């Protein structure tokens, strides 16, 4: 086991490095935005109402002071790191003075639950079908399933989502098409609220699953059709091992490795939010927050969301690497 321990430590070091570089790149990129949060606030405050030009200069100055935007980039960089190490992203600039962490905390549960459910569901169904299709490649039903999964896969996600919306929200209006739960409901653990949340999530989950299925399906089918031709599978078949057992223990298990990698990364990537899903279904979450933050030039918020996302994906990658040697004995820990 000491070999594994060394591996663990080097891997942890690499993790820290990647996170550090990632956050730095995010800092540079977000601060390169030409959108100035002060100008955005001024535009929002003066958009329709009366304004006197003399007052604007005064307003600009006091907002700069308020948002703490005075001082150069190096100063802001230092302030950013000193805050972030204690988990504080500072105040949002487009919802001043509310802390960024409060805004993220409000949106994150929605995104995480929606995407974890749809990603896992899609992954399981896609791999199951893909594996079966790769193994029983003469089954007509599975071929049909393959063609269907494949046909949905390339349709731009926006269209699939919108078609679902039209069909189940308009033509045959049985499902809610907007929001995360019904109006005038308190967010609490009650049957009514949970039921409402579930019914609101059906269309978003279905849209993500329809489009995502094909990818896993194809990957798994390719992998399985590869494994099927391996000698040990042929031996097993000749040796009269039950096909069900061959499929489960010999074929799927070995073909699944790269797919597990894929799953872990998709799970890590959910902190980016499903921007279009949220847009189409008016679903609350981190994606909408991100888009509006970008529009408002709120780099505190953009940086907060990107940092959370960077850390989450890094952890996912780290976990894969740490588990890989344990799952696939052929890979020796180095």
């Amino acid at each position, binding site marked *: 086991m000491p070999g594994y321990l060394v591996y663990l430590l080097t891997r942890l070091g690499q993790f820290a*490095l990647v996170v550090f*570089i990632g956050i730095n790149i995010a800092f540079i990129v977000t601060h390169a935005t*030409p959108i100035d949060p002060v100008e955005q606030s001024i535009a929002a405050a003066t958009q329709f109402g009366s304004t006197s030009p003399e007052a604007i200069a005064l307003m600009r100055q006091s907002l700069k002071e308020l948002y703490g935007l005075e001082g150069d980039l190096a100063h802001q960089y230092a302030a950013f790191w000193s805050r972030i190490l204690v988990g504080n992203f500072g105040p949002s600039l487009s919802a001043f003075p509310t802390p960024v962490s409060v805004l993220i905390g409000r949106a994150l549960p929605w995104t995480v639950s929606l995407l974890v459910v749809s990603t896992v569901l899609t992954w399981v169904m896609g791999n199951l079908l893909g594996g079966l299709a790769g193994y029983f490649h003469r089954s007509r039903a599975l071929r049909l399933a393959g063609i269907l999964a494949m046909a949905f896969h390339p349709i731009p996600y926006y269209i699939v989502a919108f078609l679902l919306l039209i069909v189940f929200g308009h033509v045959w209006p049985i499902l809610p098409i907007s929001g995360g739960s019904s109006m005038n409901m308190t967010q609490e653990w009650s049957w009514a609220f949970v039921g409402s949340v579930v019914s609101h999530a059906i269309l978003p989950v279905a849209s993500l699953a329809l489009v995502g299925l094909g990818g896993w399906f194809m990957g798994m089918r390719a992998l399985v059709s*590869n494994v099927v031709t391996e000698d040990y599978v042929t031996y097993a078949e000749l040796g009269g091992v039950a096909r069900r057992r061959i499929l489960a223990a010999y074929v799927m298990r070995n073909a699944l490795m790269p797919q597990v990698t894929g799953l872990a990364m998709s799970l890590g990537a959910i902190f980016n939010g499903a921007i*279009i899903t949220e847009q189409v279904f008016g679903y609350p979450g981190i994606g909408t927050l991100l888009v509006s933050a970008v529009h408002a030039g709120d780099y505190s918020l953009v940086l907060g969301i990107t940092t959370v*996302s960077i850390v989450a994906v890094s952890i996912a990658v780290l976990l894969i690497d740490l588990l890989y040697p344990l799952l696939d004995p052929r890979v020796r820990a180095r």
Partner: protein
Amino acid sequence: MWRTLRDLLRFNRQFAAGIVLLGIVAAFSCLSFFSPYPPNDSFVVPPDVPPSWAYPMGTTSRGQDLFWLLSFAIRNTLLFGMVVAILSRALALVIGLVAGYSGGLVDRALMSINDTFIVIPLFPILVLFYFVMRDHMSWGLLALMMACLGWAYDARLIRSVALSLRTREFTQTGIFSGMSTRQILVEEHLPYVLPILFSTTMNNINWSIGLEVTLSVLGFTDINTPTIGVLIYWANQHTALVAGIWWWLFFPVLLVVMTFIGLFLLAVSMNEHIDPRSRLGRS
């Protein structure tokens, strides 16, 4: 080379179907060179006409003949997808194989770079890129940017395969029989990686087209260059779906689906050709 192609066309129905589908799409995109209208001009034909003999795909609410407009759009989109795919595949393949085979320090260094690219969230980068580029934003630049961001995920996939290949017997045999690293990678490992590469190529084309559409739907795009995404953007601006102008979205989507199924069929049949063992399994 030509003989294999001929054989494939003759004996492999999937390959033939794929070629036909892609051929139709490619031929259609070539029609753009003969379009009677410049792609950006609007109100050159009556708006909102459903598909008919005069306008085989109907006209848009902007008074454009969808047939000709779409030929421009699919051309740009195909080019876009291909540029992104080719560039990012090359990166993914080289980095994945080398990292997986070499292991040790090389692997760790390459994977650190790789992981940094994986963990940086795409969307804010692309959007900020759009704002920084402003008036100079074009699909060419976007393609380049996306190729740089789109390889890391697949490099990791390829590496994981290469990693398990490294411990296989034939690799050891190859090393003992004095094959160079390049030889082992290209001759022994590449065939195992190719199916994944083809499957990721399609995924990648799909991903880049999908992302292009996403950025367009959200409006972060150069609306002066027609692509499938920009077409959808304009259709949305005119609420085409609820207004009943279904053809404005139907035909672009149809073409994208055709492209993708064509690519898929090609990949499957080529996969079988490259890896003859799976051909035996077909019986």
